[in-house]
């Protein structure tokens, strides 16, 4: 599903990732491990075409990432960045935001699906009517993760998916994502518990 070969990422001439090579087969759960500032998010961003690699080849779902394939690639992905400081008012707006795009209209979740998903994440469906300002960091994080999952995309990129969660919700989220057999997942995380349940752990600090 994801093949990365000799990836080099540099900012203003200074290389922060060099020679990164890995392969995530379909259905695998992989995580990029490394301390803060090691370039984990940048790798995810380069797989989505937001950061232009200085070198290397990225292949996703059989497509070599370039100008003509990037839209195809983005159509099969869902991405949850670490901070979602969006200018939205209500929780349901955040949850359903991706379903306002034409591509995702066909997978618009039913009320039952939404309620089930929220319950799975340990959230009360009433939360949807709450203002986003009332939500805790962990609740907001679970809403965006839930939104990514509801899109039913085959490939998910999650950036620090457990950073705002406590131990209990962390194990819930870990279970939901890592036990989902149909899903290919690449995350960036420095959470050891999350890493433990992944099929593949890529230590990014080796590629500096």
């Amino acid at each position: 599903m994801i093949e990365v070969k000799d990836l080099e990422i540099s900012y203003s001439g200074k290389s922060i990732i060099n020679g990164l090579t890995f392969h995530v087969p379909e259905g695998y759960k992989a995580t990029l491990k490394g301390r803060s500032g090691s370039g984990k998010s940048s790798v995810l961003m380069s797989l989505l075409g937001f950061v232009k690699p200085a070198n290397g080849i990225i292949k996703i779902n059989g497509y070599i990432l370039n100008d003509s394939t990037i839209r195809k690639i983005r159509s099969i992905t869902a991405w949850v960045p670490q901070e979602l400081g969006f200018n939205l008012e209500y929780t349901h707006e955040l949850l359903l935001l991706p379903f306002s795009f034409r591509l995702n209209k066909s997978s618009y979740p039913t009320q039952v699906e939404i309620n089930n998903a929220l319950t799975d994440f340990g959230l009360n469906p009433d939360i949807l009517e709450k203002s986003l300002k009332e939500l805790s960091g962990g609740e907001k994080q679970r809403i965006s993760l839930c939104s990514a999952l509801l899109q039913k995309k085959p490939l998910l990129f999650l950036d620090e998916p457990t950073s705002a969660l406590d131990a209990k919700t962390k194990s819930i989220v870990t279970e939901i994502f890592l036990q989902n057999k149909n899903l290919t997942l690449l995350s960036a995380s420095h959470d050891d518990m999350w890493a433990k349940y992944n099929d593949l752990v890529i230590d990014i600090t080796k590629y500096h």
Partner: protein
Amino acid sequence: METHDISWMNLFLGYLMLIIPVSILYWFQTGLVKQVIISVLRMTVQLFFVGLYLELIFNLNNMWINMAWVVIMIFIATFVTIQRSELNRKTFFIPVILSLLISIVIIDAYFIGLVVRTEYFFDARFFIPISGMVIGNCMERNIIALNTYYRSITRESLMYKYYLANGATRQEALQPYIKEALKASFNPLLANMAVIGLIALPGVMTGQILGGSSPNVAIKYQIMLLMSIFIGTMITIIFTILLGNRYIFDNMDNLKPDFKRVEKRKKYDNNVKRTQIKATKK
């Protein structure tokens, strides 16, 4: 239509009244007296010249000269818009000037040709002031819209990326920013339209009434002008943004850094660097 002229002597009497603000400014040692004198002098000289060449143009009333006049106004408005929005001149010249042209052609054709129905379409008395009012307002509103649009795309670039990475097309991902730009630009115009006549008599009406028109005719022109400004502004803004979008994104739909004016780009680069450092910190 008989206009009551003001004699030069009487106009001078008008200037004499400036003694009141000047002495107040002097008394309170505001240091503004010199500036008032400069401003009044500039106003007088500039208006005097405008009067001279408008008189000339109105007398000639030549289609080509009138058209050239409007084209010059469009050029000036284009440069001012790009300058005040801090955008790259090379990138934005075509989108801005083309949008103004499209807007003015539609508005003039519709309002002069169909609504006012002047005998002679390029009649300087209608063609120049209507075009001027529309161009001036388009410029002002466009600057606000463009500033809002490009500022929010740069500031909230994460949201734009979130949209794209979750399946939105570029057009869909830009929708929230276009919405914000339109709101920022049109809210004041709408508010103004809603209270017009209640708080103050609008300029055009006042001018026409002073010039000898009946108030009934004056309001018709005022309404027509407000509508053409509203519609013209909308056309200009939406075309500038949509045409501009063709030039400011690379083939992967990422915002190119060079859409800002060169002097401003340094600041933008630093901001980008800072967010990238923040991103890599994770």
